[in-house]
Every structure is written in structure tokens, then in C-alpha cells.
């Protein structure tokens, strides 16, 4: 599985959305499932998938599919 596939799978697992909505248009609150609680599930899922621990600033800044890719780079994960 590539990192991109893992990244998309984390959204699907944490938010319970279909894989076809997980793309560059997806952002916080753009779908009902990505609310504040969904956000915490997503962060937990990503931390577990990539075995990282995000800083709180990054948890706050993680506001879209695209910004998430940039944030993961900080932890050495190239998506």
C-alpha cells in the first residue's frame, strides 16, 4: 500500500466516508462526518497508521486533505 492509499484509507476509516470523496476538495466541515469529533478520530487514525504523534498546533492546523499532506511531511511522511 502506498502512503497515499494509506492516507485515503485513514479518512475512510475515521470519518466513515466513501473513498471517492477523499480528495483535494475535502476539508474540515465540508462533509457532516468531518466535525470536531470526526477530526479527533481522523488524527488518531493517522497517528496510528503512520506511527507518529502530532503536535497540538498541527492538530489545529490540519484543516483539509491538502494541508494534511503538508503537515505529514513534517513527520517524514511523503504522501
Amino acid at each position, binding site marked *: 500500500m502506498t502512503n497515499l492509499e494509506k492516507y485515503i484509507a485513514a479518512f475512510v476509516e475515521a470519518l466513515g466516508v466513501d473513498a471517492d470523496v477523499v480528495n483535494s476538495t475535502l476539508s474540515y466541515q465540508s462533509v457532516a462526518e468531518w466535525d470536531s*469529533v470526526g*477530526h*479527533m*478520530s481522523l488524527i*488518531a487514525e493517522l497517528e496510528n497508521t503512520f506511527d507518529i504523534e502530532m503536535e*497540538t498546533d498541527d*492538530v*489545529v492546523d490540519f484543516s483539509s486533505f491538502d494541508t494534511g499532506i503538508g503537515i505529514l511531511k513534517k513527520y517524514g511522511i511523503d504522501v
Partner: protein
Amino acid sequence: MELKDNKRVLEKMRAFDRYISEHGGVGTAPRGLLLNYSNACNFKCQQCFTESPGKPFCGTLSLDDIRKLADEADELGMYEILIEGGEPLVCKELYDIINIFGSDRFYIEMTSNGYLLTRQIAEKLKQAGMSRVSISLDSTKPEIHDGYRGVKGAYDHALKALKNAKDAGMQASVNFLVGHYNIHSGEVEEIAEFCQEHDYHFSLVLAVPTGNWKGKFDVMLTSEDAAYLESLRGKYKHFWRDIWPPLPNKKVQISGCIAVNRPYINPYGDVLPCSYLHMKLGNIKEQPLKEIMEYGFSYPYFSEQHYCCYAGEDVRFMKQYCMHDMSILEPIDIKEVLNNRGENNND
């Protein structure tokens, strides 16, 4: 402020979650407070565990006490403040209390019967800093809910309250009382479906043999009942129990009883391990909260992991220690309750 953007609360919440992952459970990590500032209520519920009076009630807590308590709770790393009653919406100091705790440093929640939660009140609460409102619902059938609550029209008001809370931008949650008597009635699933349909959260509150149901041990969940709730956990979204981790946690499925981790403060400032164990650990007017928490955790019952709820599932514990003449407002010193029974002595 949205939880996602609330750095201070997120930091504390994630620190609690990390503790759970590292220790396999809640251990001695402070989580939050349950605050009963005023026990007055506008309902007369059959199952009330606080024996709330239907008339004005005067405790001795002051807003200065709350200021001190809030600072101490923050210092301890607590992230969650749950305001209970009685009915919080009949407490005239409610907005002052929310303001003192502050949504910038705590996730503030309230449990209500919803009768007074109009759209305007919901908006006012949101503006004050309330993040989540939990409304008690006993059934999807109005006559059953109204019967339990002792007030005609209670069900309709509860449904409106949930909608008003959600429309105002707060997280709306249903509190459902579950015990051995109703676990297989189909109501848990009915309420869960209702919550899914409306995008409400669902918190399971366990029936306990205290308050108006003192001595009714047959209402408590059996281990088979608890296993059944576990089986529903994966089926429904936002389906919560207090013994489960508050954040999604792949390492720990059951984080354990949170008695003392989230202590209960009664209207006199007495600190109890939780809403249902009416043992006094200390008083916030007389001692720092930290000292009271440490004293509570000096009892192995509360410092060691207990993977079920003492009050709602552990019949042996409740029969042995909770049948004294004790109540929310008249808790008995924990030393007298536990040590005099010759077990779990911390001396």
C-alpha cells in the same frame, strides 16, 4: 470556540488519552469535574439519584469557590467540566459558572432535562461557552418518558431541546438510562437509531441502586449486559460509555471506571468519587483539589484499574459499601465507609 481550534483543551485531552495508551487505562489521571452547584429541579424523576427538591435550593458554594476550583482543575490538567443538577437551567448563576471555567481552557458540558432549553437559551449558552448539551431521554415513546420524568410534555420538550442545541452549534447528545431491566427491550437500539438519524451523540448512563432507587440491585448491568453494549459499540457512531476512552484509541478498548478521575462536587463543596458513590473525599472550601484527589487515589479501589463501573455493574461493591444512609447531599466520610468494613484499608 470549536474543539478543533481549542489548543489548550486539545492539549489536555490528548495528554489524558496518551496516559490511557501508556497505562492501559485511566489510572490516576485527572479528567474533569462533575459540578452540582444547585440541586434544585423542575422535574420529579422516578430514578433521580440526587433526590432533587422541586423547590429553590440553597447550597453553600459561592462563585469565589468556583473561581478557585476552576484554577485548581486547570492546574491539574483537567479538560472537562460537566455541569449537572438538579436542573442546571433553573440555576441563576449558570452563565457566571460557564464564564468562570471558560471555554478557552475547558470543554464545558451540561446535562439537562431540556424543558427550558428554548432556541434563545441555546444560543445564549453557546455564546457563553457551552460546547455540549446532553438531554436525558428514557424512551422513544412520549408516555413512557413522561411517566419516568413525572412531567407531561417532557418528551416533546426534550426533542425540541436537542434540536435547539444542535442548531445553536453545540454538540447535542442523548443520555439514556440503561439497566438490566431494559437492556433487551429494544430501546437502546431505538434511541441509537434515532441519534444516528438526527446526528446526535448517544451516552449510556447506567441505572444505579442509589438515590430514589436505593437498594434496587436488580437494575444493575450484568457482565452479559455489558458485553451486549460492547457488541453495539461498533455498530453505531458516537455511542459512548464513561468506561471507554473519550477519544478514539486503537490501543485501549476499555479505559475503566472514572471514579475520582472525574470527581463530583455537591452544592456544599463536598467532593465525591463520582455522582453515584456517596462517599466524601474532602471539601473544596477546606482543602486544595489536588490534595483531595490524591487522598481519593490513596484507596486502591480508585487508583487501580477497574474495568467496569462500580456503581452500575459491581453489585458486590455496592452491597458492601453503599447501603449506608448516604446521599449526594449527605455523603459519609470515605474512611468510615471503606476502612470500617475492614477492606481496602489505606492506613
